[in-house]
């Protein structure tokens, strides 16, 4: 069996999780609690193994021949347009399926522990597997239409999983918000496809690669911008980013897999895949770079002051996604892909770590009520610290190499403004992640209500206008007393069961403050199925830099992706000194960020009400904390003028004018019929008279025309 025959079986990769989704969807209840999770994880693990086989098969081909399309059957044929259901294996798609199946399997494994005891455990895994299948279809598709199928599939799964705990009102509305916001982007994708059919006459990527360079620049710009609109929606770039922070209402494994590691990077994949359009256009790439840089900057500022453990990570994800687009916008596609991989590892670690924390503190998400958790969650703490250093850009962890690659590309592409914004966003990243890590795992312990009360916060009130007392000494005493209780041992499973979902969401908004959740005993470490994936991901976060070291012949990923992107690269003059200087600047920025946050939060929080960074930023903190009031502005705009316009359209235009026209025609006919029906008297003789008169008239007419000869 040669490599190409082997690559023709690539359809097995998405088929395995799809099988899992069908089986668990139909028989999940009978399969039951832990077993459904193991089936889902096992199938995705098998898909990962098969992806590795595919990777090996692709490697065995010579560089320029590393592209294999298998067409399973003709999906639809309409006139000149023919779309095949086919899968494309090239370095780009193979990289992505390794990521999706690899990280996906680990997060599936984690979810077995996290979702244990949930009433709808098997349903969760059916959705999770369906997501994996859709994502794999998205990246493996050989045509825009099939990619779009996967694109909608992941959107659907995202919706289902954000609203998985639909008993929580916030979760159900967040899922709707995500779905509707994504629809705006999907509309761009569809319009782009229409333009592509018009310009190329085909939706195949092969046709795009062959012909996109020859189309008019304006057409290419329109197509590229419409595709980017889709990416803005799916990857939560500025403008349509507002669904992603709300998406944190879903279970934490969902946040980790879908809203950090894989689905939200689909936009980056699409830009990389459709690079021929962006390259042909040129202007579109500038737009992408600007959007990416702005997103990285603005989301970074918002993450600085959020009190919710997952919200910080959510805005961080938005910010990091901005980085990826920044890279793609300056033409550094392989740097973008590298960043996607590195980000998946360390953000996956952070999210799963956050999940374990939430799990171990019984749905506490307010980082002001944590602190000192490294004592109780030692393994999670280690993993979290690794991911913290990785995302902050501390060498030699993965984040440094990935971020440095992007910044260097921007610099050498002469995009100095973008470079400067990126550098500043990197400093912000370091600050907010350090803040979160220190507040969660270090400093004083603040998770017992007694401590919080002693520290002077308002326990019962929603507004949290606690009086200005400070009693750190009392806090210290209590924490000392509770230390000996549980040395972060791995606790047996039944203690962790989440049997019942509260209707109130544990999410903490900026500016609100509620009492800490009631916690009996101390926070506890997750089970081994939860700890293992976190540690594996953290290990990757350390070593992923080796994939693409910026030295000659060590750029494995760039070289691997060269058959896809090589033709877009123009060699730019680099010097070792310039590269080294940029590295040193990046390192200095990272350490500055970490240092600032370290100095501010070195002792934890004396009072949950008094967040040092918040205090120092003053009015800016309110601006950042409310996410630049974008969400509020949109709510006001959509709820106010747009709502009124829609009401007018529905109540006046549609009802009176459109429906009025339709009903008017019907009324006209009704009115005419009421008059005409009197002709039908039921009297046979009248009918006969009519016939006779008609015949006479015809006769007269004939006589008049012809005359009597």
């Amino acid at each position, binding site marked *: 069996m040669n490599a190409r025959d082997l690559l023709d079986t690539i359809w097995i990769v998405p088929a395995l999780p799809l099988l899992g989704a069908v089986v668990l969807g139909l028989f999940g209840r009978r399969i039951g609690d832990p077993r459904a999770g193991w089936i889902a994880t096992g199938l995705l693990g098998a898909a990962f193994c098969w992806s590795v086989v595919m990777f090996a098969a692709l490697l065995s081909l010579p560089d320029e021949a590393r592209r294999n399309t298998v067409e399973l059957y003709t999906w639809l044929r309409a006139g000149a347009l023919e779309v095949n259901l086919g899968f494309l294996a090239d370095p780009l798609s193979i990289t992505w399926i390794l990521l999706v199946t690899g990280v996906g399997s680990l997060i599936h494994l984690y979810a077995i522990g996290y979702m244990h005891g949930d009433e709808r455990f098997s349903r969760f895994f059916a959705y999770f597997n369906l997501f994996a299948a859709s994502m794999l279809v998205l990246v493996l598709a050989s045509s825009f239409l099939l990619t779009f199928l996967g694109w909608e599939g992941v959107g659907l799964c995202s919706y289902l999983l954000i609203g998985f705990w639909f008993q929580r009102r916030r979760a159900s509305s967040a899922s709707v918000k995500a779905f509707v916001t994504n629809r705006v982007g999907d509309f761009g994708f569809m319009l782009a496809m229409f333009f592509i059919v018009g310009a190329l006459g085909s939706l195949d990527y092969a046709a795009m690669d062959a012909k996109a360079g020859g189309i008019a620049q304006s057409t290419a710009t329109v197509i590229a911008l419409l595709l980017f609109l889709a990416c803005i929606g799916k990857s939560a770039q500025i403008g349509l980013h507002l669904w992603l922070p709300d998406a944190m209402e879903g279970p934490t494994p969902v946040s980790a897999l879908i809203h950090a590691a894989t689905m939200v990077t689909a936009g980056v994949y699409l830009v990389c895949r459709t690079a021929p359009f962006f390259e042909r256009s040129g202007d579109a790439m500038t737009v992408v770079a600007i959007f990416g840089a702005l997103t990285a900057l603005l989301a970074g500022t918002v993450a600085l002051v959020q009190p919710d453990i997952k919200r910080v990570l959510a805005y961080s994800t938005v910010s990091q996604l901005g980085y990826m687009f920044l890279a793609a916008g300056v033409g550094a596609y392989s740097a973008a892909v590298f960043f996607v991989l590195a980000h998946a590892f360390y953000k996956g670690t952070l999210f799963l770590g956050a999940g374990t924390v939430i799990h171990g503190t019984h749905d506490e998400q307010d980082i002001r009520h944590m602190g000192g958790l490294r004592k109780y969650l030692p393994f999670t703490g280690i993993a979290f610290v690794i991911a913290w250093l990785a995302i902050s850009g501390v060498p030699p962890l993965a984040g440094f190499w990935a971020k440095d690659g992007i910044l260097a590309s921007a610099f050498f592409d002469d995009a100095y403004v973008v470079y400067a914004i990126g550098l500043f966003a990197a400093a912000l990243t370091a600050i907010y992640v350090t803040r979160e890590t220190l507040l969660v795992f270090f400093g004083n312990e603040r998770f017992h209500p007694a401590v919080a009360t002693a520290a002077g916060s308002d326990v019962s009130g929603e507004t949290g206008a606690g009086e200005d007392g400070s009693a750190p000494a009392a806090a210290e005493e209590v924490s000392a007393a509770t230390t000996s209780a549980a040395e972060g041992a791995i606790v047996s499973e039944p203690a962790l069961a989440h049997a019942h979902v509260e209707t109130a969401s544990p999410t903490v908004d900026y500016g609100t403050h509620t009492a800490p959740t009631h916690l009996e005993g101390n926070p506890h470490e997750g089970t081994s199925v939860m700890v293992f994936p976190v540690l594996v991901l953290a290990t990757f976060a350390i070593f992923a830099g080796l994939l693409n070291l910026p030295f000659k012949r060590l750029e494995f990923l760039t070289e691997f992706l060269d058959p896809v992107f090589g033709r877009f690269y123009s060699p730019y003059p680099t010097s070792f000194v310039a590269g080294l200087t940029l590295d040193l600047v990046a390192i200095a920025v990272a350490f500055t960020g970490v240092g600032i946050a370290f100095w501010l939060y070195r002792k934890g929080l004396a009072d949950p009400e008094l967040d040092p960074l918040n205090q120092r930023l003053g009015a800016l903190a309110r601006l950042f904390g409310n996410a630049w009031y974008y969400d509020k502005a949109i709510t006001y705009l959509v709820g106010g003028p747009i709502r009124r316009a829609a009401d007018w359209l529905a109540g006046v235009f549609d009802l009176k004018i459109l429906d009025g026209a339709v009903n008017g025609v019907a009324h006209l006919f009704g009115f005419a019929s009421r008059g005409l029906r009197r002709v039908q008297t039921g009297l046979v003789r009248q009918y006969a*008279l009519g016939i006779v008169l008609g015949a006479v008239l015809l006769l007269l007419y004939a006589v008049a025309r012809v005359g009597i000869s």
Partner: protein
Amino acid sequence: MKLTDTYFLTFAALLFTIGAVGLLVRRNVLVMFMCVELMLNAVNVTFVAFSKTLNDISGQAIVFFVLVVAAAEVAVGLAIIVAIFRRRRSGVTADDIDLLKG
């Protein structure tokens, strides 16, 4: 006196007119039926007359079709009339049977 086709056609026209007027003025359903027969046969006479004059046999052939159709029509029509008579003993003039009106 030689019988030219003018005589036949005039006769047929008279016959047809009697039938048509009868159909319009009488209310007895049976009489109306007979008037229809008169009109049909007037047409038959015309057909035969032209057939003879133009020396074309197809005119006479059509007469047979008309006869067959007329016979069928009488069979169906009479059956309907009998059914109506059975249903309502009185008021069976054509003007009374007017249920099918708009």
